[in-house]
């Protein structure tokens, strides 16, 4: 593969590809990431809340069969390999976005793969909230909705942000795989030019781009989580 680097003409050709397509690929990666994270939380966040509040000892217990079904579905979706799940879910894309190909088409399968993860993340974050505080809110006459909105979510915020950071990293990884079925972005660039066409320079450029993105999101997420955690304030 290093032979290819020495071939000046090929290097120039690959550089040209990088220059002309990298920006758009990055943009596609970012906007599909944004939409995927958004919809994953739109579905996953309320589910995660229900997983905590709906259990037997929770603040608003739900029927047991419902909780069993909910848990089973989430586990099921979590256990199907992403690549397979994506292919199974493609017909759904036709239904929702009207097409089975392209970047938009990969968004519904990705959301289906990611929202169960989000639900579990949210669930574990909310479980960290001190039960005594929930009890104190109950003793003040808070409704279940008020407890979720004013106690559980705000108190778990640092942990939710950490979870969100992990989710973003995972979805970025899914996004690269979605390149296989035609989802645009850096992942597609790496697979199409690099893996299928032996343009390794392009592949590495795309991969390095993804690595940098993950690093940036991770450190930003950690920093925000620490900064908004009032439990970490030093005694003044």
């Amino acid at each position: 593969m290093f032979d290819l680097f020495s071939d000046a003409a090929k290097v120039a050709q690959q550089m040209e590809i990088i220059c002309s397509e990298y920006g758009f690929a990055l943009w596609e990666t970012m906007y599909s990431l944004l939409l995927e994270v958004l919809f994953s939380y739109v579905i996953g966040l309320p589910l995660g809340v229900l997983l905590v509040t709906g259990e037997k000892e929770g603040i608003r217990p739900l029927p047991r069969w419902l909780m069993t079904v909910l848990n089973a579905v989430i586990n099921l979706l979590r256990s199907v390999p992403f690549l397979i799940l994506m292919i199974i879910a493609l017909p759904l894309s036709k239904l929702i976005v009207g097409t089975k190909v392209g970047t938009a088409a990969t968004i519904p399968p990705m959301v289906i793969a990611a929202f169960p993860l989000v639900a579990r993340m949210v669930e574990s974050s909310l479980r960290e909230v001190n039960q005594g505080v929930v009890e104190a809110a109950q003793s003040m006459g808070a409704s279940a909705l008020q407890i979720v909105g004013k106690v559980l979510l705000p108190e778990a915020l640092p942990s939710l942000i950490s979870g969100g950071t992990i989710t973003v990293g995972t979805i970025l990884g899914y996004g690269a795989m979605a390149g296989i079925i035609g989802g645009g972005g850096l992942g597609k660039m790496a697979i199409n030019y690099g893996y299928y066409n032996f343009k390794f320079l392009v592949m590495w450029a795309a991969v390095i781009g993804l690595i940098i993105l993950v690093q940036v999101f991770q450190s930003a997420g950690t920093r925000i989580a620490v900064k908004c955690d009032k439990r970490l304030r030093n005694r003044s």
Partner: protein
Amino acid sequence: MAGIIELKGLSKTFGTGENQVSALKNVSVSVEKGDIFGIIGLSGAGKSTLVRCINLLERPDQGSVLFHGKDLTELKEKELRLQRRKISMIFQSFNLLDQRTALDNICFPMELEGVPRKKARQRAKELLETVGLPDKADAYPVQLSGGQKQRIAIARALASDPEVLLCDEATSALDPKTTGQILSLLQTINKERGITVIIITHQMSVIEQICNRVAILDSGEVAEIGDVVDVFSNPQSQAGRRLVSPNVAEPALDWDIPIARIAFNGSVSEEPVIARLVTTTGIPVSIMGAATRNVDGKAFGTMLISLPEDPGKKKEILDFLNGCQGVSAEEVTEHV
């Protein structure tokens, strides 16, 4: 007169089968408006369960919880939530919201009620003054000491303008000095705002310091209930005696001699009761065990002495003792 809070025949059982534990057995307690009512018991006596039954954080299996004569157990959830605002609670572990400042913690119950933000903050600031922490408005719980956290919790409990304040082991996590400060704050609140205070504790000193009435809980049952002065000076139940004088020598089972229990209910400490007993009656007695305390020059506590077998001499001794001021005596029969 009906009390502000009346618990009638409360029973609560946890677990099933072999692990079944009766936390409360047919407990009835009446608390009058303006009381500082203490509920004391050793750990496992069911006192936390009892206080949590008052605002129905715990639902009793049987019995009713009357607040102003209205049975809370029969209310719909929404009505219950409204009533809970009139019965505030503070906790051993404070239970402040870690991600909110002290001021915002105090605003919390007012937010729940929908009080406008500006008005809520104004009131929260006044409450900070009340609990003596006007400069801690912007501090987060992690920056506060235990005593300060409990003060904020008290301010938060007062924010909904309650009629009753429940204190679940509120001073158990605090050092003695801070405990004293928190207790006198509770006393002030009781006096100035007319808020009825119900205190759960395992510390005798807490009851002694501020309560006017006390119930002693033992294995889920009310062993004794009454005015603090009466219960403390002359506890009638075994649990009561154990608590009042934790070191009192309960007669050992293998003692085969008659024993008398003398209760000192505020007799003058320097009065040589036992010496006079011996010189007056001429009957020698042996002190088998004693746990007395000197409070303000008055003796409180119990003492066990041996009695002669002869019924006449026994009576002579008991009569002498019962004739002394602030002293009562009876023969102990439970060990034979």
